[in-house]
């Protein structure tokens, strides 16, 4: 019990990363791997873990959006600078 949430969180992280890898294998869009990076997926999982029992989902949704918009902006800006 001292390892509260560690087992399930570890397994959840492994499952999400597996699912990401599977998704990339079946996708023919080269941008996907850069946008949906392992960092972003990990950050999303952290947020998921934070609010799984929370009533107020809007706070977490705001955090998700901020992280996604940041990532999208980074990728688009990087793409723009390369072009």
């Amino acid at each position, binding site marked *: *019990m*001292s390892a*509260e949430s560690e087992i399930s969180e570890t397994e959840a992280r492994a*499952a999400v990363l597996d699912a990401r890898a599977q*998704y990339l294998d079946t996708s023919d869009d080269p941008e996907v791997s850069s946008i949906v990076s392992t960092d972003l997926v990990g950050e999303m999982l952290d947020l998921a873990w934070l609010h799984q029992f*929370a009533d107020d989902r809007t706070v*977490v949704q705001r955090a*998700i959006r901020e992280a996604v918009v940041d990532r999208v902006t980074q990728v688009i800006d990087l793409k723009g600078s390369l072009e």
Partner: protein
Amino acid sequence: MRLQHLTLNNFGPYLGEQRLSLSVDPSAPIVIFYGENLFGKTTLLNAIRWCLYETALDRRGERMPLTELVNYEAADAKNWVTGVTLEFSHHGQTFVLERQAQAEAGEPLDDGDFRIVTQLRVDGQYKAQQDIKGIIDSVLHRDISDFFLFDGEMLGRYEELLHDDARAASVIRDSIEQILGLPALSMIQADFGELEAAAMKRHRQALEAQRRDATIARRAEEATAERDSIKKNLEELRVLLNTELGERERLRLQLQRYAEVQADAEQVAELEAEGEALEGQRGSVSAERRRTLSVNWWIPIIATAAERVRRAQLDLVAASEEVAASARREVELAQLKAAVQGGPCPLCGADIGQDHVAQLHDRLSSLEADLRSSPAGAQLASLGAVVDALAKVADSGPAEVLLGSDQEYRRLGIEIRKRKRKAERLRQRLRDHDVEAISSLQYSYDAVVERARAASDQITQDEKRLSEKEGELRRIQGQLRHQPGANPRTGAEARTYTILGEVFGRAMNGFRDRMRIQVESAASEIFRQLIAAPDLTSLSINEQFGLRIHTDTGRELTTRSAGAEQIVALSLIGALNHCAVREGPIVMDTPFGRLDRRHRRRILEYLPQLGPQVIFLVQSGEFERDRDLAYLGAKVGLEYELFRPEDRSTRTEVRKVV
């Protein structure tokens, strides 16, 4: 979550206010309450449950009315107030949860007559009423509380899980998945859906503002509306299905309790039907008997006729012998007559003396007298005629048929009486039960099963429609994202949510499988520690979290004793607590009821590993302090005894055992 103090006020058998410390160090995490039956052990478990979730459960797992929770003596004194305060710590914060129920006017009849006041302080700050439930659920969600606060007598609920996959799928599996953290993935997946919809809305609005390709935007709008409508419908159907499944479970439990009564009622009906069938058979036998008698009217005198024949045959033999004797006498008479007329003996030729002649005269007279009294040939013929006539009547063929009918008639009568007596005994047992209400319950159960099936079918159809509609929406949104003039960031943002949603959706199945393996491994490990049979080495888990016992050769054990079921259930609970996303105190009421001494010892030795705070409520039949305390070693932090003051019969008080 660690419980610090529990304060009861007029709750169950606890009159007035009683405050108990539950604070223990993880190095000695065990708290024991000793109490005999009816002394209020389950009430302590219920006090915690009621304070946290406003629900107290009886032994059948049904919600107890508030009128049953208020202390009887307090209620007799018109003091209809009861309350529980729970002080606990969680993630470094101190929580004080107070719940009080008070009758609003006069003697309450049901829960509606009570006013319930709940207050929660976290680190001394009062929380808003509307936030209390959410905060408590975030500490120890009600749906997973059954794995922390459980009644040993209700372990059957978990044992059913091990057998009835279909039912487990509806109720307990969801709770198990909740305790393992699966909602984390499903909730964020839902978040991605909502955020994607919001991003696409912004994207469409931008397009519409530019009045470019309004048709695609309108199609997207329509597809979104249709998708949302299907989603809403699905949500309603899922709520409906859950309600129906809950109702099905409630009715199933009721039916289970009435199963014996129902079986009796069904047996009475069967016995009555059998009785009627036997009456019919007996009627047929009776009719056949009457028909046989009408044709063979003489059958009733057969026995008499047979006796007469027997006697007549004896008379006939006697008469025949008499006729033969008479013939011999007549020969002797003729010889004697010749002898008495003088001359030598006709047999030997010797002279017969005068004294012998006198004797011969006497003999002659005697023979003549005998011949006069002997039956005539006519009498013999008459007897022969009688024998012939009676022999015809005494033919036993039809009589045997009738005898067989009589025996069958009597046998059927016995069978009918046996059934009537048995049915009457069962009716007496049923007299205290409303058989019609039970039949009605079965009818309701069948109806709810049918409704749940219909809802489930509709959900499957709607899920298919939703999947199709989402595919269509993705295609339209793909077109929209590539429209010139639209904000590329908004389109990319929406697409990212779509991909994240799919990734997390795929991850859920993988996570389920991984956690199942973790639970299986932990449960097997605990099982090996608890079970005293070395050949039983592992548990396997199915998709519904049902557990099977396996031997060291890999064979599945198909027959399990009640004690083994309890050990398997405890192994599952231990494994779930080991893998849970939340820590909580384990409160076990009457946990050793079905265990033999050897297994009880093993479980006691294992208990301190179950969690940082384990409270168990035991009675002397399952735990003898002098004998069993040693198994817990130095792991016992607190011991309490529940006792009744001498002058009170229903009031319980608590004292610390030193």
